[in-house]
């Protein structure tokens, strides 16, 4: 190849490379300009900040609500004192009983039923829970003392008119856990910093607590541990979340254990 040809080829390559670099730089500059404008225009948008500034009303309760809670707490304290006075509390160590239950699901559920069954069994037999009654909970395939059902949220009202699609509930011998709550707890629980496993302990203990003979309880004092029979899914009422029955809650009218 002659020198002239080589010079022409090399010059061509250099010029092509130069043109490509210029084109790339121009494209990059245009892109940067658009990014600048895009960012600047985005700053001009005010609606997201305005929406963020809308905060829900404070969790204050009206006076009638506080009065009702105070009256119930007083009645509970009196009842507990009466029980204490009558020495009617059976020592837990002496109780030895097996409570059986079945596990099933209803409707479409997004959770694993086997995981549900395993976690429920752990909760029920945890020494912080209803096992303190001196009972052992055992899952059976049929004919248990009660039925534990993981249900699609929309099907909750089919169990009883008192059951709501937003919550879990107990209807007769059926203890129904709402699949939505099982998977995501509630905003009250989550905003109080409660974990999902603790929520699951709480909801199982709460609903089984109804089967054991408990009604709802209320927060005893601001900052105290909430009774497991308090409706912690809805509101902590100033209490700390607590998945396990308090000492005062360890009794069961259904099992005849006081």
């Amino acid at each position, binding site marked *: 190849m002659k020198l002239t040809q080589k010079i022409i080829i090399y010059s061509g390559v250099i010029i092509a490379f130069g043109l490509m670099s210029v084109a790339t730089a121009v494209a990059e500059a245009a892109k940067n300009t658009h990014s600048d404008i895009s960012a*600047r225009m985005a700053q001009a948008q005010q*609606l*997201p900040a*305005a929406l963020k500034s809308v905060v829900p009303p404070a969790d204050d309760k009206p006076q009638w609500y506080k009065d009702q*809670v105070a009256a119930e707490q007083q009645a509970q304290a009196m009842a507990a004192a009466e029980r204490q006075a009558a020495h009617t509390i059976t020592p837990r160590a002496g109780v030895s009983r097996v409570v059986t239950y079945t596990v099933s699901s209803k409707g479409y559920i997004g959770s694993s039923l086997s995981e549900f069954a395993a976690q429920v069994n752990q909760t029920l037999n945890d020494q912080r829970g209803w096992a303190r009654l001196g009972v052992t909970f055992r899952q059976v395939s049929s004919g248990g003392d009660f039925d534990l059902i993981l249900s699609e949220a929309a099907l909750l009202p089919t169990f009883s008119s008192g059951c709501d699609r937003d919550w879990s509930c107990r209807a007769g011998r059926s203890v129904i856990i709402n699949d939505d709550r099982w998977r995501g707890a509630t905003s009250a629980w989550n905003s109080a910093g409660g974990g999902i496993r603790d929520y699951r302990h709480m909801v199982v203990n709460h609903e089984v607590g109804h089967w054991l003979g408990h009604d709802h309880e209320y927060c005893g004092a601001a900052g105290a541990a909430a009774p497991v029979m308090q409706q912690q899914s*809805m*509101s902590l009422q100033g209490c700390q979340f607590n998945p396990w029955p308090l000492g005062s809650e360890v009794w069961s009218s259904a099992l005849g254990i006081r």
Partner: protein
Amino acid sequence: MKLLARIGTKRLVIGLVVFAVLVLAGAYAAWSIASWRALEERTASAKQASEDVLAKLRTEVLTVETFDGLHRMMTDASPGDTCELSALVAWQKVVPGRQAVLDGCDQAQALVKRRDAALQQVRQYVAGEAELVASLKTATDKLAATEPTNYEAMLQVWRQAKADSAKEEGDTGKVKAAVTEKIDAIIAALDELNKANAAKDRKAFDVAQEKVKQAYAALATVQETATAAYAEKIDALLEAY
């Protein structure tokens, strides 16, 4: 008279006609040059207006008024059919190079109009959002001054906010619809809370209070819809560039 007689009337007439033709030809040539030059200037002015708007988008504080100013810049640069030439001049597009000047003007004007239309879309959206922001701001100010257990008053504030939002005349489309829907949910939940409060029904009160919290949280999620809708308008504008 002697001079006239010497030149002859016929020659004088011919001379005057030739002179007049030359003057008219000169005037026509000057007019043609001026017309084509004006066309080139309008093309340059349209291109410059586009670039100026782009520069201002990078530097100005963007408000509805800013967008109106940018719109004026665009319309001043393209006030109607500015690329039209008189038929007495327009025929000259057959001359090599003249058609390209005419096409260049048309393209520049079309570009300005397209960019201005995209700019107007953003302006309309920003104006609509400003109205929604104003109604929310009024509501939050009133709510801040309301007793925390005066649910009836809260209900009235949100009903008014809904009415104010409905008046919005900008172009926020689905954002306005989403805000209205979420405000409706807040009104429904507060109505339930208000009724539970009046009935002193604690269980219903707890349920309704939870629903109120969820409804407020749902309103906050409209942020995502708003951000996406605005980004769409910005993208359309930048695409026009």
